[in-house]
């Protein structure tokens, strides 16, 4: 079990309120990702759930039981930190065993669980090393091992992949997703990387300045962003947001169209411009286009290799059905 419910939770540091009243339900077994730009309060929110920070007002319930005044140790949650926070003076074995030792489990049970976790995480050969002798990816696995042996109600991840290099990050992303599929335990995952959010989440919670801008499945957020913030944040490269006459033509203050929803045509396109930078990836080509009269720069993704170069004129056709419209407040017009 691991349902987490936040009711009217606020957090202030001194006189600055970093989280205005916020309600959120994280369902049992759900993989929830908090995503947002740095300083949006996503890590603070996670630490409130963990109990590492006090909430200023409101309630937190874990599995229907009030957890607001429960110390972190007693909430039944496990956390994986950004820096992994391994105990440098203990071997991998002792690191993983630490929470069990604190729970006063007997030795045989501890050994069994530690070795079980080690074999799941491919750490068996490293059990007697110190964290300092491990690579970044291995350390990450130890941190995860330390979390799973406790069989917690929920896992909390605080930007766990941000210290890994790009290749490892993709691998660990898959491992964590698989772990979730196998354990079916609630996971709350904080990241500023929307690709991680899109690939891993059952539910994404987009945060901005402590406020939940939108929550929903990755595709819900992609298909119908509730406002311009979510529209700009979810999806890569970013959605093009256009204001002015072109938007007014569509009875909107702002229109948004994703780079992959603009087609490059030979001539006679609805929009024209000149190519600034062209990024040829082989499978795709990204164009950064100037002088369209619509926005300072448009980003367009073409499938395959399109042989336009810097300074070339380009003709574009947005797909009408894929245009998102927003009002003056930035809210979606449906």
């Amino acid at each position, binding site marked *: 079990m691991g349902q987490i419910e936040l009711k009217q939770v606020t957090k202030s540091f001194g006189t600055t309120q970093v989280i205005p009243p916020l309600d959120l339900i994280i369902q049992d077994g759900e993989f929830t990702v908090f995503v947002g730009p740095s300083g949006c309060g996503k890590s603070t929110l996670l630490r409130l759930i963990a109990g590492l920070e006090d909430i200023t007002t409101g309630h937190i319930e874990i599995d229907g039981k009030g957890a607001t005044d429960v110390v972190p140790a007693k909430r039944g949650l496990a*956390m994986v930190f950004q820096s992994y*926070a*391994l105990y440098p003076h203990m071997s991998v074995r002792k690191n993983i065993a*630490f929470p069990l030792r*604190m729970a006063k489990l007997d030795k045989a049970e501890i050994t069994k669980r530690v070795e079980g976790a080690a074999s799941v995480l491919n750490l068996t050969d490293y059990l007697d090393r110190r964290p300092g002798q491990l690579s970044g990816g291995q350390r990450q696995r130890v941190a995860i091992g330390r979390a799973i042996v*406790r069989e917690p109600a929920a896992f909390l991840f605080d930007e766990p992949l941000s210290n890994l290099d790009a290749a490892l990050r993709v691998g660990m992303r898959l491992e964590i997703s698989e772990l979730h599929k196998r354990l079916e335990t609630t996971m709350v995952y904080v990241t500023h990387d929307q690709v991680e959010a899109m690939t891993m989440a059952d539910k994404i919670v987009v945060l901005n300045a402590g406020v939940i801008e939108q929550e929903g499945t990755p595709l819900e957020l992609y298909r119908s962003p509730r406002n311009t913030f979510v529209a700009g944040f979810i999806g890569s490269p970013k959605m093009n947001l256009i204001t002015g006459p072109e938007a007014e033509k569509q009875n909107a203050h702002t229109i948004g169209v994703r780079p992959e929803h603009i087609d490059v045509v030979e001539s006679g396109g609805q929009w024209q411009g000149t190519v600034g930078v062209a990024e040829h990836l082989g499978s795709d080509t990204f164009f950064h286009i100037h002088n369209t009269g619509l926005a300072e720069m448009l980003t367009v993704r073409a499938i395959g290799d399109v042989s336009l170069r810097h300074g070339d004129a380009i003709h574009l056709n947005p797909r009408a059905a894929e245009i998102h419209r927003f009002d003056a407040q930035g809210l979606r017009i449906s």
Partner: protein
Amino acid sequence: MARNVTTQRKIITTAAAWTIGLIIFFPIYWTILTSFKTEAQAINDPPLFFAFNWTLENYAIVQERSDYMKFLWNSVVIAGGSTILGTLIAIPAAWSMAFVPSVRTKDILLWMLSTKMLPAVGVLYPISLVFVQFNLLDTRGGLMVVLMLINLPIIVWMLYSYFKEIPGEILEAARMDGATLKEEILYVLTPMAIPGIASTLLLNFILAWNEAFWTLNLTATNAAPLTAFIASYSSPEGLFFAKLSAASTMAIAPILILGWLSQKQLVRGLTFGAVK
């Protein structure tokens, strides 16, 4: 420095450094050397640097006159006891300041340090009255408490600066792992801070060992440490150079050896963690 240094320059630097080093060390060297001379050789003109009959008789005489082992033991007990006591009190305090800092933390730290500025002589009489009242005069326990109080601010400060280098996330991890505060400090913080705690213990042991105001003024015979042992040679008998040297050597040898052995940790400790 990533550059080629000419051998010539290195020779000059070496010569200069060694000369200065030897000059600074000379008084100690001279004392140790003299302690092995006879009194006549000790005041020989010109001074004898090598050619003399080495003798241990001064050490025998000093030992006969005053029971060195008793003073030594008092020094060990008083310095060791006060340091350990201080550290036990300082660890929780330093934990608080390093990991749960508040707006007042820095003020408290500075206030603690400022208690060290309280001129000892200004409060000597009141303290001796308190000592008389509680029968602490000339006891090791009383002196241990006083030296602990004197060094407590430094111990707190040093531990604080070491603890601050330990990432808070690791302690939070321990908390998430179900550790109580006691377990967090015992199993996670303390083992991680061992090098820092060791150099704190060392430096404060040395400071307590060499403390010469309270140890001279609050002891008579029973609890007198080595500072008092050597002070008894400051009378005109001190003119017996060889015996004075032997006594001096006996008083400083233990801490000199300890200091040299632990030089690396000490240098770090000496800087109070404030200079990296």
